């Protein structure tokens, strides 16, 4: 079992319609899979632990099949994935922090989420009283005329907390090292033993800007585990919410990126459009961000006549205004001067890390869960997956501009084609323990949620992998050689989630 086709055998229709098939593998097979990952033939979708095992989800981008491998870890260790596949390193460090299970041969054994402040170590495994805080060992830097700039965890703007350690030579950034984990809320532990309803509440509060994507991925995982058929209308309404969420985020961020290049007018104009999306969402679904609107089994609100009219009017307004904003973006030389050729993400790196969303697609990684691991109703909708190869801030802005246009077209199709019927069904009862996988394309990229249910239908384990896990490390690479003053711009053009990765 070392051919990639043996490792990834599950098609999207399979894992999306029933319980997940997990392959218990030997350490040899596991290590073989790690080699294959290291050779770039497979992409890691995620890596997570339970108290006695470690599981990885793999994707073969060529065949669009996935595979879930699980290796025993009762001896508190497993063969490292990060040893050959760097994108797994932070996930491994988190596994050690939470479970006390260590990666054998792992290249980086420093804690990640654990800042030695919880009062305990390994809160999800064999818990012990915690150690006193120690100074975090940042990577050493050596060289002439280097100095360091430390930023955070509290940032100057109204954003999430995290620490950035820059090493600069003059104005040029030689190295950025991130330290995250400040917003770690112990969500995994709260999930364990929770009811499905409580799990949905927590999932929807993992990363506030992607509440629909998370709630949908969680619902998908539970529904797959229980092989529940969700009414068609509910599925179309979920897609409508997901596209509204994508629009709101893209519009807001395009403005915010320009604002970080000191072009405030774009922020003002884009924030008007964003506000209109939020108000329309509120009118249709009773909440500006549509929190708790996707529930396992369906959705909580139907789209009434007034909502339909409002959504159609919203699409019309954005179509009317947005092109002139795009033209403005494209014609202001001082803005272009900041965004073009700034913060280039090398396509090879994007591929190697399996970077999802606009970050990956603006660097040539042609992947979109909606198309490549398709789920309803996107299998019935027409859309393009825009793609670019320059990988600079400008490309990421354009990528999002193109995605706004696709979302508008999708909303048109949803309004035209949405079937009548029920908006929710009750979930089948779980009589045996089972597992399910959800994968949803949020605005930031693919959100993966794995849920294991016990024989009473409670959550035994829920793992949520934000797209940011594979994007944050790339930001470290992207800023290298840029001037420090361009960091806010690069950072905003990535817009990774802190809370989504800290959990």
């Amino acid at each position, binding site marked *: 079992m070392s051919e990639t086709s043996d490792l990834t055998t599950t098609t999207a229709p399979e894992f999306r319609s029933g319980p997940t098939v997990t392959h218990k593998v030997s350490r040899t097979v596991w290590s073989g899979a790690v080699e294959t990952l290291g050779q770039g033939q497979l992409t890691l979708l995620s890596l997570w632990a339970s108290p006695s095992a470690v599981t990885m989800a793999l994707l073969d981008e060529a065949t669009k099949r996935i595979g879930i491998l699980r290796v025993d870890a009762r001896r508190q260790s497993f063969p490292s994935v990060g040893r050959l596949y760097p994108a797994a390193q932070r996930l491994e460090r988190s596994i050690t922090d939470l479970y006390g299970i260590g990666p054998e041969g792992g290249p980086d054994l420093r804690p990640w989420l654990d800042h030695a*402040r*919880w009062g305990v170590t390994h809160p999800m495994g064999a818990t012990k009283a915690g150690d006193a805080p120690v100074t975090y060992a940042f990577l050493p830097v050596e060289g002439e005329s280097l100095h360091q700039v430390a930023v955070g965890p509290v940032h100057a703007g109204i954003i999430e907390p995290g620490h950035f350690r820059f090493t600069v030579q003059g104005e040029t950034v030689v190295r950025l090292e991130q330290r995250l984990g400040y917003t770690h*809320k112990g969500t995994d532990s*709260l999930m364990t033993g929770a009811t499905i309803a409580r799990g949905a509440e927590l999932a929807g509060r993992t990363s506030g800007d992607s509440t629909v994507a998370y709630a949908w991925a969680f619902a998908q995982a539970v529904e797959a585990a229980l092989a529940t058929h969700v009414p068609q209308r509910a599925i179309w309404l979920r897609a409508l919410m997901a596209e509204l969420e994508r629009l709101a985020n893209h519009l807001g961020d395009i403005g915010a990126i320009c604002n970080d290049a000191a072009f405030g007018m774009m922020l003002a104009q884009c924030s008007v459009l964003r506000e209109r999306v939020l108000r329309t969402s509120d009118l249709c679904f009773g909440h500006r961000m549509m929190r708790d609107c996707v529930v396992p089994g369906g959705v909580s609100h139907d789209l009434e006549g007034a909502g339909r009219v409002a959504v159609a009017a919203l699409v019309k307004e954005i179509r009317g205004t947005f092109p002139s904003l795009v033209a403005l973006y494209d014609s202001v030389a001082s803005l272009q001067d900041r965004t073009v050729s700034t913060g280039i993400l090398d396509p090879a790196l994007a591929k190697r890390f399996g970077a999802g969303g606009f970050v990956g697609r603006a660097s040539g990684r042609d992947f979109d869960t909606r198309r490549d691991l398709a789920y309803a109703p996107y299998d019935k909708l027409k859309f393009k997956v825009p793609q670019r190869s320059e990988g600079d801030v400008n490309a990421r802005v354009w990528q999002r501009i193109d995605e706004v246009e696709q979302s508008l077209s999708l909303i048109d199709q949803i309004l035209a084609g949405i079937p009548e019927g029920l908006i929710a069904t009750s979930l089948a009862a779980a009589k045996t323990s089972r597992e399910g996988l959800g994968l949803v394309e949020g605005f930031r990229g693919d959100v993966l949620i794995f849920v294991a249910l016990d024989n009473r239908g409670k959550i035994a384990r829920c793992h949520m992998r934000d797209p940011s896990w594979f994007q944050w490390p790339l930001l470290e690479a992207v800023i290298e050689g840029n001037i420090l003053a361009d960091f806010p711009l690069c950072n905003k053009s990535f817009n990774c989630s802190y809370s989504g990765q800290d959990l």
Partner: protein
Amino acid sequence: MRKFLIEGLTRRPLTEAGPEPADPALEDQGLSLRTTLKQRLGRSLSIRQVDAGSCNGCELEINALGNPFYDLERFGLRFVASPRHADVLTVTGPVTKNMAEALQRTYDAMPDPKWVLSVGDCARGGGCFAGSYAIVGGVDAVLAVDLHIPGCPPAPVELLKGLLTILESASARI
């Protein structure tokens, strides 16, 4: 660009009237917003925001206060980059153990007199994250809170009401 500038001159502004003191929960705090708006003239407050572990939902709505519909700055309210310039600290999220010290230090860096506004359901008692090993609880587990704004996240109008309430309270205390 000229098009947008001309439109800005000729179009009706999008900015909406400030909120009325409609929320009984806020009025309970013994403060009338109607008088706030009058007494506020000439007064202004600088606000520093700290995310002490939120999901980022609350920050998004705080950011929305700057858009042309709400236009926070017309009330003399301004978000500032440093706690040393701030009169008010708004805090979102359950306070995580990893952020508690940074929150305390931010507060300590602010000059007196100062007020603390806790924002969002998580900021009171930890909300849906209460009971986790990784959080200390709500904002009041670390700082004395002057006013709480509920919601998940609170809509911008609710945030505005809360901030105007603080503005009133600030005028009363000085």
